[in-house]
C-alpha cells in the first residue's frame, strides 16, 4: 500500500483553520501557511493563541506559554466546533471555501477525534450546497521479540494498514450527508491456515463502506448510517483511548465486537455530544461473513459526557458508556448478546479508561459467558517527546470455569514527532513496550498447561496516521451555485 506517500501527502497539506458558522455569507479562510498570521485576514484567532497555533505550527510553542488562564465554557452549542474567523473579502469565494474545507474540523480545543454526527470533518460552508472529500491513512507496524513457553521468536509485524476516503456534502444547511470507504490490508489466510492467496499474501479488503446523513435540529442532531458500518462501541471508546497503535481494546482483540458489520444505525446526539444514543441493526456476522441466520443484532449504546471542558491545548472530556446487544451468530443462530459499560477520559495530557464487557455467547458457543475487563492509562511526561502508557486486560474466558482467566499486562514509553494538537491531522508515534500474557490453569488453548501459552513480548511499534482533504477538491472548479 502507498501508505508512506499518502502520509507524506497529508503532512504537506495546509494547516487547519476555522470558519464562522454564524456567518453563512462570510465563509472562513485559513491563513496562507507561508504568510504570517498577523493582519486583517485573521483577527479573532489572533486573540486566541491556541487557535492561532492551529493555523500555524510556528506559534504552537507560543500558544503553550502565553495562553491566558483557560475560560470554561459550557459545551451545549450544537455546532460549537469552530471559531469565528474574519476572512479576506478579496479572495474568490470558491477559493476561500476550498481553503476552509482544507482546514477540516479538527480544532482540538473542542473536537473529539470523530464528531459525527454533530459535524463533518470538513468545514463545509453554512450556505449549502457544499462538499469536500477527505483522505486518511493509518499504519501500525513494528518489530517484536516474543518468548512463548520459553521459545524465542522475532518478527516484523503489520497490525494495521488502512486507507480511507470520505465524501462530505451539505445539500441543505440542516443536512449533512456523505459516504465513507475504508480499505484495510489483511493476511489472505486465517490463523494457522495455509490456504491464502499466493501463500499468505496480504490483500486489501473493505473494512467499512457506508453512507451517512445527519440532520441538525436545534440542539439535537440525528444521524443515520447504512452499509458496512463502523462498530460504535469501539468508535466511541477510542475517543478516550490514545494508544490503539500498540494494542487494541480488550473487546476488540477478542472480537467481542467486530470493527464493522453490515447494517444500519441511528444516532441521536444532543447538546454538542453531551448525550449520544446509538441504535444499530446489523447482521451480526462481522466483516468476514454474509448473514447466516434470520436474526439480526440489535444494539443500543448510550454515551454521556458529564464533564467537558475547553482548554487551550485541547478538550477535556469524561464519558460514560453503556451498551446492550441482542445478537446471534452463525447458521445455528448461537446467542451473541453483549452487555458493556465503560468510563473514558480524554485530555491533552492524559488518557484513561476502563472497559467492562460481558459476552453472553462467544462466536459459535452460544452457551458460553465470557467477561472482559480492561483498564488503561497513557500520559505525556514531557510532551510531545516522551509519554508513558500502561494497560491491563483481564479476560474470564468462561464464567462457569474456575481459573479460566487470561491476563495481559502492557507497559511502555512512546514519543511523538508532532504535538498533541496535530494528533488527528498527523501522527508519527514510536512505542517501546513490554507485554506479558499469562494464562490461568484452565485458560488458553491447552487447559492444565498454562506454561505452554505463557508469553512475553518486547515491542517496538510505529503508529503513523494522516488525515487531510483531497487535493482533487482543492483544485476543483467552483461549484455552479457559488
Amino acid at each position: 500500500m502507498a501508505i508512506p506517500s499518502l502520509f507524506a501527502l497529508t503532512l504537506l497539506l495546509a494547516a487547519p483553520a476555522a470558519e464562522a458558522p454564524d456567518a453563512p455569507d462570510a465563509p472562513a479562510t485559513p491563513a496562507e501557511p507561508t504568510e504570517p498570521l498577523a493582519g486583517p485576514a485573521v483577527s479573532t484567532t489572533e486573540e486566541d493563541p491556541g487557535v492561532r497555533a492551529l493555523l500555524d505550527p510556528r506559534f504552537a510553542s507560543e500558544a503553550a506559554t502565553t495562553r491566558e488562564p483557560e475560560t470554561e465554557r459550557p459545551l451545549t452549542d450544537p455546532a460549537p466546533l469552530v471559531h469565528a474567523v474574519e476572512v479576506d473579502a478579496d479572495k474568490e469565494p470558491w477559493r476561500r471555501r476550498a481553503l476552509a474545507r482544507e482546514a477540516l474540523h479538527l480544532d482540538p480545543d473542542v473536537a473529539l477525534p470523530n464528531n459525527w454526527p454533530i459535524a463533518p470533518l470538513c468545514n463545509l460552508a453554512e450556505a449549502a450546497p457544499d462538499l469536500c472529500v477527505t483522505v486518511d491513512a493509518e499504519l501500525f507496524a513494528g518489530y517484536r521479540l516474543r518468548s512463548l513457553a520459553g521459545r524465542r521468536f522475532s518478527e516484523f509485524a503489520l497490525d494495521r494498514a488502512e486507507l480511507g476516503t470520505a465524501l462530505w456534502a451539505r445539500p441543505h444547511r440542516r443536512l449533512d450527508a456523505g459516504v465513507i470507504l475504508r480499505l484495510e490490508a489483511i493476511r489472505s489466510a486465517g490463523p494457522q491456515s495455509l490456504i491464502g492467496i499466493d501463500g499468505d499474501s496480504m490483500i486489501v479488503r473493505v473494512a467499512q463502506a457506508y453512507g451517512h446523513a445527519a440532520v441538525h435540529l436545534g440542539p439535537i442532531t440525528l444521524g443515520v448510517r447504512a452499509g458496512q458500518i463502523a462498530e460504535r462501541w469501539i468508535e466511541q471508546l477510542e475517543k478516550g483511548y490514545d494508544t490503539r497503535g500498540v494494542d487494541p481494546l480488550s473487546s476488540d482483540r477478542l472480537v467481542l465486537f467486530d470493527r464493522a458489520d453490515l447494517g444500519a444505525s441511528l444516532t441521536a446526539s444532543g447538546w454538542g455530544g453531551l448525550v449520544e444514543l446509538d441504535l444499530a441493526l446489523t447482521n451480526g456476522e462481522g466483516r468476514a461473513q454474509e448473514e447466516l441466520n434470520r436474526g439480526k443484532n440489535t444494539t443500543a449504546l448510550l454515551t454521556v459526557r458529564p464533564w467537558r471542558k475547553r482548554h487551550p491545548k485541547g478538550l477535556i472530556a469524561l464519558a460514560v458508556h453503556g451498551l446492550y446487544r441482542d445478537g446471534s451468530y452463525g447458521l445455528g443462530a448461537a446467542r451473541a448478546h453483549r452487555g458493556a459499560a465503560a468510563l473514558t477520559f480524554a485530555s491533552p495530557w492524559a488518557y484513561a479508561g476502563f472497559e467492562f464487557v460481558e459476552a453472553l455467547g462467544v462466536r459459535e458457543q452460544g452457551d458460553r459467558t465470557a467477561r472482559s475487563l480492561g483498564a488503561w492509562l497513557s500520559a505525556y511526561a514531557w510532551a510531545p517527546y516522551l509519554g508513558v502508557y500502561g494497560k491491563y486486560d483481564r479476560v474470564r474466558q468462561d464464567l462457569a470455569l474456575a481459573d479460566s482467566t487470561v491476563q495481559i499486562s502492557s507497559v511502555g514509553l512512546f514519543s511523538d514527532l508532532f504535538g498533541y494538537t496535530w494528533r488527528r491531522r498527523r501522527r508519527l508515534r514510536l512505542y517501546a513496550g513490554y507485554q506479558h500474557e499469562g494464562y490461568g490453569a484452565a485458560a488458553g488453548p491447552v487447559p492444565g498447561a498454562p506454561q505452554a501459552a505463557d508469553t512475553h513480548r518486547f515491542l517496538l511499534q510505529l503508529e503513523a496516521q494522516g488525515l487531510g482533504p483531497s487535493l482533487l477538491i482543492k483544485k476543483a472548479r467552483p461549484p455552479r451555485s457559488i
Partner: protein
Amino acid sequence: MHPRSCAAVPIALPHPTRAHLGLLSAAALLGACDPDEAAARRSWLHTTLVLDNQVFLETEPELTGGKLAAMASDPYAYFRGSVGQYARDLAQAGAPGYLPTAYLPAEAADVALVGDPHLENIGTYRPAEGPLVLEFNDFDAATYGPYHYDVRRLALSIAVAGRVLARSASDLDEAAQGAAVLAALRGYTEEIARLADGAPPAPILSDEPDLATDTILRDLFKKADEDGGAREELADYTALERDPELETDVRRFQYGEVEPSRVWRGGAYEQQIHEDALAPTSADDRWIIGQVMRSYPATLAAPLPHQEEQLAIKGVARRLGAGVASYPVRRYYVLIEGPTAEVDDDQILELKQIFDPMLVPGMDEAARPRFTDNGQRTLTLQRALQSGPAVDPLFGVGHAGGLRFRVRERTKYQRGLDLARIAERLADGRFSAGDVAELTRWAGVLLARSHARAPKHDGRPAAPAIAAAIAADPEGFLRETVDFVAAYAPVLDQDYAHLDALLADHGPRLGYFAR
C-alpha cells in the same frame, strides 16, 4: 469440570482398571440434558458444521450434502467427519472437551502430530523392498501441537469404535471396550518410554514376530497381500479393451459404481451417498490433473527408474465416495503406464486435494505453521511420521494454481483397517474382544513410534520430551486420558443424535444455500 454440557462431566477413575473403564459407557447415561443446554449444543453443532464445510457447500453442494448424510450413518462415521468439532471442543474454554492435562510441559507442546489418528486411518503399505509395513495413512491433518491431542483422539476413536463393534460381538462389553482403550494407552506410554533415549523406532513389519498373536492385524496384512498381489484395483476400476487401430489391448477406466450408492432419508429430505464410484472428468478437472502431474514428480523421494515413461497418463477419472471428512474434496484417479509398457503393470495414482489441518482455536501463535503451503506440510510431516520415504515410492504432492494435492499409489497393498470387516468377523466368531484389545495396543505403539520419529517444531526429538512428561506418573496419564474419553465420548453420541435431527429439520446441506 463444569456443567456446560450435561454429558461433559468427567468421571473420576481412581485407577485405570478394566472394571473402572466400564464406566465409559456409564458416562453416557449422564447424557440426559437440560433442554436449554441441548439446544445450545445443537445450535453450536449447526453453526460449526456449516463453517467447517462452507467452502464445500459453496463449491460442491451436492457432495457436501453427501458428506453430512454419510456422517449420520453411524457414530464412527460422525467421529471421522467431525475433527473440526473435536479441535474446538479440545481447545475452547466452555467446551465439553476442554479438560485439563497435568502432563504437558512446554517441551512437549510442539510435537509433530498425525492430526487425526484413528483406527480407520491405520493401514498397510508396500515399500519398494521388503515386507508390508503398518502405518498411519492419512496425514491431511498433520501439524504441530501438544502430543496428548493425538493420544486423546486415538483413545476416543477406540471408545467410539468399541460401541459400534459391540453391536456385532457379545463379548465386547463395556469392560472389554474400556480394556481396548487402556491397551492403546499402555501401548503408547510403554513404547514412548522405551524410545526415550531418542533412538529411531523400527517400522512395524508384517513379519514381525510380535504380530503373530494379533489376529486382526494378521488378517489385514494377509488381505492386503492377496488383493495387492492380484492387482484388484485394476479389476475394480479399469478394463481392457481392444483397440481396433492398434490391434492391441488397452486399459481404460470404467466409469460407474464399483459399489452401489445408497440413499439417506430424513424428514422430508433424501440424499444420495456414493460408496465407490468413478465419474468422467470435466475440462477443469483435466487441467488440474495435468498441472498436478507436471509438478508432482519433483517431490518424489527418489527418482523412478523410467520416470517419464512410468508416469505417462493413460486415463483420468473423478473418484466419488471415498472418505468421510474428505468426501467432497476433489479426488482423482490417474491411470499411468507403470514400470513397463505392458498393460498388466499399469498403476493408478490417487490425487487428493489437501486443505488446512485441524485448526485449533487459540493456538494461533503456538501452532504457527512453518510451511509455505499444505502440500509441503503434508509431504514433510508424512515422511517424518512414517517409517521412511520408501514406504510409498510414489508418494508426493503437486499443485495446480493455488490448489495442493497429495499423490499416492492407489494399490490394494495399501489397505486400511475397516471397522465393517472387523464387525463382520466379530459376529461370526473369527475375531474376539481380546483381538480388538491387541489391535488397539498396536495402535498405541504405532502412534508412539510416529511421535518418536518426527522432530518437534524446534527440531529436537520428541520422544524424550514426551517420555519425561509421562515418566513421573504414567498411571496418572492413563487415568487422565481415560477420564477425558469417559467425559467426551457421550458428547459425541449426543452430537451424533443432534446431527440426525439437524439433517431431518434442515436437509443434508443444513439449510445453507450457496450465494
